[in-house]
């Protein structure tokens, strides 16, 4: 019974992490920049759902609209600001961080700095192998699997995906073949933002809406992309899965007799970073270095 609960909780958190990392990884791989406003795209997705919820509209509708809204905001920001940073990765980090800061503080102002709950579209829990598990967490797991599969199919099976991969491999050659990398970059950035928006929309009932929701996930998302490696689809997903599993997983270590006094919750949190640093040391290019999709 405990094992079912353990596996389920780890899977649920892993799913959220993977959703967050997916968009971050796509942008990092494609444009070679780390989008430090990614956390705020997650926040905007969550905020959209919150607005629907306070307006009395169905929460699930907000979840469908959130990726579209955040994708559109991403597109505007890319065309207006972010595309100027592609040749300057360090300035891109600072610039996107600044963008994120502006978005975060605006949302903080709108929320009055407070914390609000957002109800799940599917509340309650159900029994899984004799253990009560949250229905919404189960849905998040299923949706994540579907989205990851969908994204993978999009990248590997469609002609647009082919063009994205071409621009990723060799932008100059892609341009000379008549592929507009400018358009592709704008689309990819908006797509990454939309994924972040969706992640925020799906996770907000599990946590609550507050201005720092995104930042919480940005650091771990960044680490996931480092672990997984840039330039592939699978890399960041794997990295996200590993970080997502370690965060709640290590918390359970103290349930093992003999370890309870050794692994306190703060130590478990630090342990995630220690393991990540060791992996980065052993595999500096990430899990997947070669073999692009």
């Amino acid at each position, binding site marked *: 019974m*405990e094992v079912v*609960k*353990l596996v389920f*909780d780890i899977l649920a*958190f892993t799913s959220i992490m993977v959703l967050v990392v997916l968009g971050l990884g796509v942008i990092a791989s494609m444009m070679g920049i780390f989008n430090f406003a990614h956390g705020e795209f997650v926040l905007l997705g969550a905020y959209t759902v919150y607005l629907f919820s306070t307006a009395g509209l169905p929460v699930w509708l907000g979840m469908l609209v959130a990726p579209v809204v955040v994708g559109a905001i991403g597109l505007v920001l890319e065309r207006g600001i972010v*595309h*100027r*940073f*592609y*040749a*300057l990765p360090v*300035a891109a980090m*600072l610039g996107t961080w*600044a963008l994120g800061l502006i978005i975060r*503080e605006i949302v*903080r102002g709108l929320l*009055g*700095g*407070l*914390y*609000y*709950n957002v*109800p799940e579209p599917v509340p309650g*829990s159900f029994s899984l192998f004799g253990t*009560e*598990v*949250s229905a919404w967490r189960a849905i998040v797991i299923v949706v994540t699997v579907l989205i990851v599969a969908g994204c993978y199919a999009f990248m590997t099976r469609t002609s647009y995906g082919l063009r994205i991969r071409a621009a990723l491999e060799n932008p100059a050659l892609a341009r000379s073949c008549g592929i507009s990398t400018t358009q592709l970059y704008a689309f990819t950035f908006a797509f990454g933002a939309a994924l972040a928006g969706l992640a925020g929309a799906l996770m907000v009932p*599990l*946590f*609550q809406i*507050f*201005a*720092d*929701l995104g930042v*919480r996930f940005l650091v771990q998302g960044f680490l996931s992309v480092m672990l997984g490696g840039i330039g592939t689809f699978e890399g960041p997903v794997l990295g996200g899965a590993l970080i997502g599993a370690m*965060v*709640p997983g290590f*918390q*359970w270590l*103290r*349930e093992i007799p003999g370890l309870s006094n050794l692994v*306190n*919750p*703060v130590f478990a*949190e630090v342990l995630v970073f220690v393991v990540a640093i060791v992996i980065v040391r052993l595999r500096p290019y990430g899990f997947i270095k070669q073999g692009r999709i």
Partner: protein
Amino acid sequence: MADDFNEREARRRGVSRRGFLQGSVTAAGAIAIGTGNWVLPAKWAHAAGPIKIGIATDITGPIGYAGNADWNTAQLVVKQINDAGGIAGRPVELYLEDTASNETVAVGNVRKLIQQNQVDMVLGGITSSMRQAIKDPIVRRGRTLYIYPQLYEGQECTKYLFNTGPTPAQQCDRLIPWLIAKGNKRFALPSANYVWPHLLNEYARKVIEANGGEVIFEEYYPLDQIEYSATVSKIVGEKVDCVFNTVIPPGVGPFFKQLYEAGFQKNGGQLACVYYDENLLNVNKQEEMEGLASCLDFFQDIEDPFSQQILADYKAMFPDTPYQFTAGSAASGTWRGLKLYEQAVIATNGDVDRDAVNEAMQTAKIAQGPGGGSEVVPGKWHCKMNMYIAQAHEGKYDVVEKYDMVDPKEC
């Protein structure tokens, strides 16, 4: 080669290094100058000049909701004092500096209050780390009186520093026996890992054990942890009766939700959380916090007419504010602090000399206030005040017990 490309690319896109640097310098300048200071000048002249009060609180940053409520409260109290003719005939002038939830910024801004504005008293700081950071610039180097308005972990016995919020004794001495009397014997103390929960738990543990209860576990989590499955599993597995929580937002929302989903309340579990006020009612869904017990010096549900008048005045002065007048955001402590100071300065006949006011503060007393009257315990730097136990019910608090003039038991 790569640099060449980058430079060419940058030029093509119209971003030069110089341009970037210029932009950064402008932005840094705007951030450094800041916008968080404010003055409400005195409305009439007096031979001895106005009494200057400095408010140093978190207008921006993660706990801005509390800081803004405190600033609103200060404006309300000072307006009422001035409307009634000031303190001993002298008008009160109010100065605001933003502590921005950032100790480094705060120390600089507090110095401005003392050196530039030369205030007679500073009230403010919400977190304990903020109090620790600004008390030295105020009390020792600044040689100014300091009032700290927030509920906190106790043990602050600095001369010239008055604490007007509740202490662990005031929050635990009545609440814990009340919880145990309801049949809760097995306690869990899940906590955020910083100074307040550590010291509060130390006190709570003593009270729990002295009353025949038992602490099953006491654990500290990183402040931003939002995943509590292992903790919830332990609480359910160990058959804990009462979760005495000091996990703070953002962690507390998902924690209570996971606890609810695991059936803790359904199986008779009791939640208790001594910092929970009206601001935190929205963190969880109603059913997730049904029955939660809190112990504070003020709740909006209190029927005392004076408390209701304060709420009405606050609402009239700030009709559209999102920042509520609550105990957990230190608004009640701010109100109390300013009114006790008023009484002390009345006693000195308008003299604001630090030692004179300090002397008068020792016996300062107010008959009415949010939640009732209050008085400073002489030589103890803390206040006696009424304490209330309230339980969350259908998304609001119902006050269930009232205790008169509870002793802070500090210093």
